[in-house]
């Protein structure tokens, strides 16, 4: 089991993370951040995240600031 921390003030909504997550746990959100971008949100109600950190490694804006495993 793992978890990630997203800093939505950094996110620019490129959605690379949503394509990258092997468990499809990162989804587009309806909320916007201060830049007016539709943010992403991490939903893991069933504890599926494996903490692989692929999302964080591919995020061009370092918006995924922490990965725990």
């Amino acid at each position, binding site marked *: 089991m793992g978890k990630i921390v997203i800093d939505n003030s950094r996110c620019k909504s490129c959605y690379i993370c949503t394509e990258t997550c092997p468990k499809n746990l990162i989804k587009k959100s309806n909320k916007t951040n201060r830049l007016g971008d539709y943010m992403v949100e991490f939903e893991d109600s069933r504890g599926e995240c494996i903490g692989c950190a692929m999302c964080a490694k*591919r995020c061009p804006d370092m918006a995924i600031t922490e990965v725990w495993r």
Partner: protein
Amino acid sequence: MQQVFSIPKSIKKDSKYTFCPGCDHGIAIRLLCEVIDELGIQDKSICATSIGCSVFLYDFIDVDCIEAPHGRALAEATGVKRACPDKVVFTYQGDGDFASIGLAESMHAAFRGERVTALMLNNTTYGMTGGQHGPTTMMGQITTTSPTGRNRDYYGYPAKMAEQLALIDGCAYSARVALDSIPHINEAKNAIKKAFQVQLSGIGLGFVEILSTCPTNWKMTPEEAHVRVRTDMVKTFPLGVFKDLSEGGK
């Protein structure tokens, strides 16, 4: 639980990237900072920055930086390294800065075998000024100043810097990497680290060409741009290590 990823220490606290959404500069800067942290060289590193999108590096990296005139980053890096040989000196340039405006400075730094590290991001276009045709624009690629696509008769062929530098005796390490997928990102980090290690062991110039995207000027989504890197760009710019004079290298 154990933390397996965090923001590198050599990134300035609370700094936020100002690049376009999906721009690979962000990944390249993070890898650079991770290497600086792992080698423990933050307090003795000096960066000669360039002109272009890559110039924003000094807003985000917490090491000393010196601004160079367009294309002259390796000339400035030469001066800094010769004045302070105990420092770790590197440049962070785009393809227009390194391979066009600064081609003479870049090549001669390699001819002289300067003990510095040069990183060049290749996004096949002049990103900051609106996506004009550059030295690394691929054959057939449409840009704002090559509206019918690059062709041999009018524009000639793209510059392949990693192969060129590998032919120069003073260059100790030359590699081309990409940032489009996790395996390539991991390889890119290893190559950047090697380019610093050849400087630290005093063998010669370490050079890494990093294939990156420019979704804004390519008029693609970030994911489409990465697909272009792995399908089109790698055909023109094959990935790999072209020269490695370090211990255990080829």
